[in-house]
């Protein structure tokens, strides 16, 4: 049974039928999927969710899909890791990593949103899907479309990392590189959607696509033992995921599935592309678009479509924002890998670096529960880590040569201990 009631304008509340629509005809505000929560009461419960598949579709009652899912059957339900080593390093009591670097099939949170968007594309009768992408979305659209038997067009900025390009091409989509940044690509995709009538997942299917991001929030709550973390730090690119995690938390609160512990939301951006964080810091409702200049290309969106709503949610929840320089991003990637064995891409490094700043500033208390949302995998962007590590020693296959290395390691450790003692 579907509990979807309509599409509703986030600004004026005008209602529209379920159709491929992005904006309200009256004020051009974005439309969002609305549900009948009263009808869900007593039917959508912890038990009903726990009885579902171990994928995003266990939250199907809270997603805008009417038919039996055929896409994303293994997407979602990624680990929520209690990061005790990292917590000790940062001096905080309770720290979790929601790790979408392991998401299936393309190792980023985008597999959630694309699965929902492609199901909707199938329901609407589209045979061609596409996206404007900084890489991760292209991978996901290409992979899911391959499985679903849909034609895929992926449009990417011309200067993406090599790993991100091959990660799409392997699924045989039609790929077009656009000279310009993500915002230029996105603008072209709007025109393509209008002219060719294709389902561009983050353009004309955006209201459905974004709903998939709620599953990241649902999972955090469920995996935390049906509780909400008091502080959630989320990367901001186009601004999809942060407001949708918030929506997920609020839906669970509305349905009585979790207690309202007044969770706070925090935005993380790279210093080289931080229109939303700047607006939060300046206490402005509006952000000024920027030209991105950062190693965190997957979140380098200078004019985020839902940036306004990120600011709104952050403010409403009592959270804040922080941005991280390229070197801070690299350091955070290394820290997460060293302490928790998780290799994230620069977007994840940005989120952790921002969380560290917010903790150091005292905006996030050290004795309350914190969740850091990691949305992508570092193996896709190994270029950014080149030159970051000392070269590994090369030896002949002789134990005596290996012994020398072990002795050197011991000497360095002893010297470090002696220095620390001084």
């Amino acid at each position: 049974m579907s509990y979807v009631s309509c599409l509703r304008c986030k600004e004026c509340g005008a209602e529209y039928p379920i159709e491929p629509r992005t904006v309200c005809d009256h004020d051009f505000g974005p439309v969002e999927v609305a549900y009948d929560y009263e009808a869900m009461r007593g039917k959508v419960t912890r038990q009903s969710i726990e009885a579902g598949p171990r994928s995003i579709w266990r939250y199907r009652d809270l997603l805008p899909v009417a038919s039996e899912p055929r896409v994303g059957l293994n997407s979602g339900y990624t680990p929520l890791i209690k990061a005790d080593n990292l917590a000790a390093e940062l001096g905080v009591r309770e720290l979790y990593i929601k790790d979408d670097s392991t998401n299936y099939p393309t190792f980023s949170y985008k597999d959630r949103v694309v699965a929902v968007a492609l199901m909707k594309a199938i329901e609407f009768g589209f045979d061609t899907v596409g996206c404007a992408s900084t890489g991760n979305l292209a991978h996901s659209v290409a992979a899911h479309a391959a499985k679903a038997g849909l034609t895929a067009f992926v449009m990417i900025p011309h200067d993406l990392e090599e790993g991100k390009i091959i990660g799409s091409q392997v699924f045989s989509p039609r790929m077009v590189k656009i000279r310009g940044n993500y915002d230029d690509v996105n603008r072209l995709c709007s025109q393509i959607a209008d002219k060719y009538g294709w389902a561009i997942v983050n353009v004309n299917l955006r209201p459905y696509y974004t709903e998939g991001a709620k599953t990241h929030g649902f999972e955090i709550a469920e995996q935390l033992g049906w509780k909400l973390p008091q502080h959630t730090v989320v990367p901001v690119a186009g601004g999809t995921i942060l407001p949708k995690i918030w929506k997920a938390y609020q839906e669970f609160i509305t349905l009585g599935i979790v207690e309202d512990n007044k969770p706070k939301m925090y935005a993380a951006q790279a210093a080289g592309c931080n229109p939303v964080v700047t607006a939060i810091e300046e206490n402005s409702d509006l952000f000024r678009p920027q030209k991105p200049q950062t190693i965190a290309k997957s979140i380098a969106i200078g004019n985020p479509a839902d940036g306004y709503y990120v600011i709104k949610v952050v403010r409403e929840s009592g959270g804040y924002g922080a941005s991280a320089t390229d070197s801070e991003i690299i350091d955070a990637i290394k820290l997460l890998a060293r302490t928790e064995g998780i290799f994230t891409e620069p977007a994840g490094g940005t989120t952790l670096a921002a969380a560290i700043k917010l903790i150091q500033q005292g905006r996030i208390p050290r004795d309350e529960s914190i969740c850091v949302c990691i949305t992508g995998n570092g193996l896709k962007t190994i270029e950014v880590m080149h030159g970051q590590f000392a070269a590994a020693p090369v030896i002949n296959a002789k134990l005596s040569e290996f012994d020398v290395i072990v002795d050197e390691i011991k000497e360095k450790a002893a010297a470090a201990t002696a220095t620390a003692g001084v």
Partner: protein
Amino acid sequence: MSETTRKCWLTFEGGHQNEPCLWKMSRRYPDVVFDIRQASVQKDIGIMAVLFSGKEEEIEAALKYLIELGVKVDPVEGGSLVAG
């Protein structure tokens, strides 16, 4: 020339939020009708959702003129769309 409509987001920055850019545009292109659907103006930035109506070429010229005046013009992503 065919009649058409165009939905746009206009962003005013760098002092342009304090200039009557739309008035200037309408003086130069009086047959282009502009209908402000939503607006928010703050100290450093102003954003406006505007529906333009008129002959296609004239709307195009009017939008180019706004860009010359320093206004950032972005198309609003499509309204409803039929599968195809």
